[in-house]
């Protein structure tokens, strides 16, 4: 971690002299960067002009489809057809914006709420649904819960449940890119709750010292399961932490697709120019429950949820597209219908596929099976043949 930042040394300089407190009270709230407000007013016409409107229409269509997928999959989970599901409803701009702003050779470390980053890059819907079902075509071979996929071809890294672990990993990948002389950047997505983990700190600090071409994208959706922002931190913004790592920080309206594209694009340009990482905090709201295991009624009010709806990224974008003559009710209907048909068809197909083969239990622990794993695979085969297996009794093959 070398390119020095020419930071002042730690020795006490005799300069200055007045008794200065660094910050007391801490700096006041900073208005998030916006391009297109919820009420339709445009803050930054120049930036809007720089994005091909057809791209925005495509992005909007993808976001509408994502919402349909989320709605359908939550229903499917309730019907017992999925073991678990977790939606990104209300936060679509935080996946599709960065996906659009970056190049395909930029690596992505999503949390569990950004299927959009892979789908936008061409990760097949069917493969995504195969993962939700955990069948033989699930890229992770049925080893993780639904929504924990992996998309190597898209340079999207395998999703983990432990939150925050991805942050130093992203710093390391960014370091490796520079080390290899590649012009790419690495981005990591995580929630504001996750920013409390030690891994957040060590990852951002490493990246700062190394001036690694990394982007840390914090989706501040107001909740970590039931824990509201006020119990996550006393800081008014997560992005203020950038100060403490000597890196660039940015607060952005996470429900404004344009603003997210702009923020990530600027951070990428900054990183590619060798200036180091940016911490982006995207203010948004988790309109959905945390997951299908959660019920937000236990900890937040219906009024709060209704108020948050005003900021929903979809209607705001739709109004703009309609004003440009790029969208209408018919296209909306058609997009929804197609998305609904596509996801349900994919689900039906996925359900018809067999389980991953039993051999997958023992593969990929190491590059090759160890003798112990070979022996355990034989043990399991014998057990399954014995007629006493719970797995067989439950219909497993």
């Amino acid at each position: 971690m070398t390119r020095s930042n020419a930071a002042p040394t730690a020795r006490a300089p005799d300069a200055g002299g007045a008794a200065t407190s660094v910050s007391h009270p801490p700096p006041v709230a900073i208005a998030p960067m916006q391009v297109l407000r919820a009420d339709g007013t445009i803050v930054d016409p120049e930036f809007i002009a720089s994005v091909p409107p057809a791209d925005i229409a495509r992005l909007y269509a993808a976001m509408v489809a994502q919402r349909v997928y989320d709605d359908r999959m939550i229903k499917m989970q309730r019907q017992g057809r999925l073991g678990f599901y977790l939606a990104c409803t209300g936060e679509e701009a935080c996946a599709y914006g960065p996906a659009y702003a970056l190049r395909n050779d930029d690596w992505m470390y999503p949390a569990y709420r950004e299927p959009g980053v892979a789908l936008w890059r061409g990760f097949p819907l069917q493969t995504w649904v195969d993962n939700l079902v955990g069948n033989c075509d699930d890229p992770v071979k049925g080893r993780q819960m639904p929504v924990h996929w992996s998309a190597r071809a898209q340079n999207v890294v395998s999703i983990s449940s432990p939150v925050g672990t991805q942050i130093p990993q992203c710093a390391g990948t960014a370091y490796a890119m520079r080390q290899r002389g590649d012009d790419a950047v690495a981005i990591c997505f995580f929630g504001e709750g996750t920013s409390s983990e030690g891994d957040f700190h060590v990852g951002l600090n490493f990246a700062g010292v190394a001036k690694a071409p990394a982007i840390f994208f914090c989706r501040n959706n107001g909740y970590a399961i039931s824990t509201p922002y006020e119990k996550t931190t006393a800081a008014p913004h997560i992005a203020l932490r950038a100060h403490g790592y000597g890196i660039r920080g940015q607060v952005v309206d996470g429900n404004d697709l344009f603003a997210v594209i702009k923020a990530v694009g600027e951070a990428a340009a900054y990183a590619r120019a060798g200036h180091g990482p940016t911490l982006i905090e995207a203010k948004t709201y988790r309109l959905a429950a945390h997951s299908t295991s959660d019920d937000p009624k236990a900890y937040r009010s219906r009024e709060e949820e209704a108020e948050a709806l005003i900021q929903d990224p979809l209607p705001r974008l739709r109004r703009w597209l309609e004003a440009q003559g790029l969208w209408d009710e018919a296209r909306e209907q058609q997009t929804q219908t197609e998305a609904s048909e596509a996801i349900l068809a994919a689900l039906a197909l996925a359900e018809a596929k067999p389980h991953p083969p039993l051999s997958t239990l023992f593969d990929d622990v190491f590059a090759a099976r160890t003798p112990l794993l070979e022996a355990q695979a034989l043990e399991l085969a014998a057990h399954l043949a014995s007629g006493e297996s719970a797995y067989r009794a439950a219909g497993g093959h």
Partner: protein
Amino acid sequence: MPTMNIIQAVNDALDLAMAADKDVVILGEDVGKFGGVFRATVGLQEKYGEDRVIDTPLAEAGIIGTAIGMALYGLRPVAEIQFSDFIFPAYDQIVNELAKFRYRSGGEYPCPMVIRTPFGGGIRGGHYHSQSPEATFAHHAGLVCVTPSNPYDAKGLLLAALASPDPVMVFEPKRIYRGPAHGTNWSAHPKGEVPAGHYTVPIGKADIARPLRGKGIPVSLISYGAMVETCREAAAKLEAEGIDVELIDLRTLVPYDLPAIVESVSRTGRAVVANEAPKTCGFAAEVVALIMEHCFDWLQAPPLRVTGYDTPFPYTLEAAYLPDSGRVAAAVRQVARYK
């Protein structure tokens, strides 16, 4: 007597402890308004306030680290780690700090507190909501480790933990939180009867969960946590085959009840040890090694282990991975018929 499931028993123990001692505080992710993702702390924040049932930021090292600082000062914290898969960011605080505080300070700074964490598979949690890391804590001297297998013990062990002068880790068998088996609940089970009010289950004492019936080849079957019910199922099945299982529920892993193990195995001469964690360096290895050291002359057959496989925990194939009663029965048969 009231019947409870394990979650209710835990909640009841916490409620009693908080009512009796205002130094008892609960802290963890989502333990407050929400009552915990498994609902073990439901209603307690309402009753005892936000200062005593603390919704923490999302940081396990912070939960344990702050709990240690509270305990040193004299509070009696009960930290909840949402899943034991997520306990590892706090591993350093637990094994280097909590476990060693009394020893390294020459006894000046004891640190009695409780860590509750659900462990084990069987809830379709896959890779990261199913692990059983108890052996990696048992290895570090200084941590009492207990694992209830039923509501009666869950309440009694937790109340014992809350009275212990030592740090206690409670590994809760989440698979059987609500019933001893899928589809049944604890109210039908004798151990589902949970006395109202305060009682303790002694730390360090195993339980004979099923005594020998006196008919058939005797085999000691030693386990803990959710696997106790799996073993009970196996024992029932084996009875008809002329194999008489004495089922020992360890209940405490550290300090383990060696006399109970030795007493049983020296009588039966045959033993199977079952745990859900991977085989290599799991707690079952320790029990087998102890049996070797203390019961060699009585052994009629090699003690066998039934364990999870040495792979990460799967999702779709969970039922193939989890040690089921069939695998336990097969091992017991092998030991019983060994010549």
